[in-house]
């Protein structure tokens, strides 16, 4: 009996990953509000929230891919592709905005599907496949815009509202992210279909022998990840009204960092959407601190790298090396 008790306490401590991350975030925010008075201003909170909402959406998709045992380096590029495709079909072809959005999302789904086909049918590694797709997506974004940002002007109030408006005082992109996190976290914990992602990521062979359709699960995951990336691109367009081919550059790194800080394992089988959400918040806070404290933006990437490294090291110490 004593054994059971001990190990369940231990289990709880491990399960507390999200809780300890939340504590770190709160402590960090408290420290920051002392050191940088501007931190608690509505303006700063709102801009930080909007900034992290796109990254957060990518991180949600990334979590699914990491849990299934893969990786998706193309999310930033797919985001840019969807962003400029919607913008340019609107501007140059004069398409209805919702039609443009639909086309963008549909093509993002198609990208996710083709990634999954390379991985499941041709058995390419996810790393190579999505590295190529990262380059292809970005390339397309440049080709479509001929390299420079294009403003779409004021096209639709609803569209503008989605990106720039507020509901209950919260900027809509932030609200969308929060809803997405709630829904996806619930599904990842409870849905029969989504639980299979953990089985496949934990041991693909064993999943196959248990009658789980491994390929179907992977296809679903990559499609979801790419569609979410495309959606983030649309949201970015709605927010800024500019089709920008450089949008989402380096976002894959932040998405991976967020997911991993939140507990996702690069070897698959582990990770939660809530954790990734908190991880992204932490990354955003660190960046925000650098801005508020007047540190040059050039330092941001470096610091994100360091935060990621420390998180992974702490994780290894806790879980034991693999």
């Amino acid at each position, binding site marked *: 009996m004593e054994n059971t008790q001990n190990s369940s306490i231990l*289990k709880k401590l491990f399960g507390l990953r999200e809780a300890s991350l939340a504590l770190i975030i709160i402590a960090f925010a408290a420290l920051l509000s002392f050191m940088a008075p501007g931190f608690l201003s509505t303006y700063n909170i709102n801009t930080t929230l909007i900034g992290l909402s796109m990254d957060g959406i990518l991180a949600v998709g990334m979590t699914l891919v990491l849990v299934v045992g893969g990786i998706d380096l193309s999310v930033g590029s797919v985001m840019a592709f969807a962003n400029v495709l919607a913008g340019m079909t609107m501007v140059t072809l004069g398409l209805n905005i919702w039609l443009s959005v639909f086309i963008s999302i549909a093509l993002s789904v198609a990208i996710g599907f083709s990634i999954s086909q390379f991985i499941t049918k041709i058995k390419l590694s996810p790393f190579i496949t999505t590295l190529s797709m990262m380059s292809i997506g970005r390339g397309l974004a440049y080709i479509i815009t001929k390299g420079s940002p294009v403003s779409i002007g004021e096209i639709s109030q609803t569209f503008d509202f989605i990106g720039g408006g507020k509901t209950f005082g919260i900027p809509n992109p932030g609200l969308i992210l929060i809803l997405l996190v709630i829904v996806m976290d619930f599904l990842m914990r409870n849905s029969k279909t989504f639980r299979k992602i953990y089985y496949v990521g934990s041991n693909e062979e*064993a999943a196959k022998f248990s*009658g789980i359709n491994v390929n179907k699960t992977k296809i679903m995951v990559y499609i979801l990840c790419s569609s979410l990336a495309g959606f983030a691109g649309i949201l970015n367009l709605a927010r800024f009204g500019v089709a920008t081919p450089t949008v989402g550059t380096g976002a894959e790194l932040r998405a991976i960092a967020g997911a991993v800080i939140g507990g996702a394992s690069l070897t698959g089988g582990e990770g939660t959407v809530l954790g990734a959400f908190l991880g992204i918040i932490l990354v955003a806070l660190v960046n925000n601190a650098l801005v508020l404290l007047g540190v040059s933006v050039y330092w941001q990437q470096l610091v994100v790298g360091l935060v990621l490294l420390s998180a992974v090291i702490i994780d290894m110490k806790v879980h034991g090396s693999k």
Partner: protein
Amino acid sequence: MSKLLEMRGISKSFYGTQALKDVNIQIEPGEIQAVCGENGAGKSTLMNIMTGILQPNEGEIIFEGEKLSNLDPRTAQEKGISIVHQELSLCPEVSVAENIFMGRVPEKRKGMVNFKQMRQEADKVLKRLNLDIDVRQPLGKLGISEQQMVEIAKALSINAKILILDEPTSSLTESESQILFDNLMRLKEEGIAIFFISHRLKEIFKICDSFTVLRDGVHVGDGRVEDVDPDDIVRMMVGRELDQAYPDRTTEVGQNILSVENISRKDEFENISFRVNEKEIVGLFGLIGAGRSEAMQTVFGINQPDSGRITLFGKDITANNTRENIDQGLIYITEDRKEQGLFLDMDLNANVVAADLEQVSQNSLIKKKKVKAIGEKFVEIMNTKYASLDQPVKSLSGGNQQKVLLAKWLAVDPRVLILDEPTRGIDVGAKFEIHTALRELSNNGHAVMFISSELPEILGLSDRILVMHQGKLVGELDADTATEEEVMMYASGRKNDFKN
């Protein structure tokens, strides 16, 4: 004679599980010592401490008169302590030759691998074990018993002073084990000390000089093998008398359930036909490379046959995938629990429900309560020794992992069971329980087919015996009258009833 190694007062606990308590063990050069105990008694843990993989909480290790503190695997290997782990621990993607010479590849010029020499030497090492394997192919291409032989070959080729074999024979047939034993005798002559772990008592009485028995992590006895008989050891292991008879055979065979007609797969097996009926247990025997597992996995739907037909309850299921077969009541329990069976990082509950998420779901959502209920129920049915249902399966002892694997498949409530080495790594007592459970299933109208490398199990549990040799079915015997010799005649290719 002087002691080569002595371990004194070893204790080890894992988060509240006391795996070893004040254990003493010692060995002399040229001694073969059996380490006995039930599943979870602490055998593997003790061996892992000896090789520096685990650190004891208390106790000391004295090797050649020198106290080894904070022993790590590297130092242990340098001192000449070598181990074949219970679970395969080689790299499946790398060639057989490179696996054998892992960490000590022959070099050509500075830093360049001499592949030719490596292959030749690997060949030589394998020949000593009567193995004819292409050393250039990736290890993962081999079956589990061949991989086990490669692992043994590797351990034998290292110039060790102490060789630890943790259930080396659990996936081997007697003839392969015999080759291993011949080699062990040769090493013994050379003065090498060997720790030998096996749940097959017969093997212990065949090759071991001495024994140590652990029960629940405590040293409960040791001595010379010639002074005791198997029942004494079992009594020490389980702490009581154990009835070990095989359950009675079937009295009436029911109607046909599974029928396999002439299935073939290129390079794997050819024209395999058999039937499995209600209330009957069919045993399938064969040596390494006979194609038993490959054929059964094809029946289960992991692969499709190139030709032939499979019917279940009269319905053609040849093109079925595994999911469809599971849903129709046909299951296959793999021999390779680590790679194909279990989700080692996931907890017991998650493993038990893995093959049937449907039954724990409602409206496509998984109900935690049901998961827990099913998990607990089947883990208990199997008498699994565990600390908490939330613990990852990899923290269970080998035999207890095997029980979780069986629990997972019992939980889907199958009608037709194909079991590949179901009692692999299972201790004597639990083995008896599993045999009884299989017989009960069969009596209740299930069809049971099992593969085993252990002849006594094949003869004792089956009603009917099938034998494969080099991808072909060569014999079908009535278990009542069959003898070990006869089965071996078929398995080794000296007898064939189905020649065409």
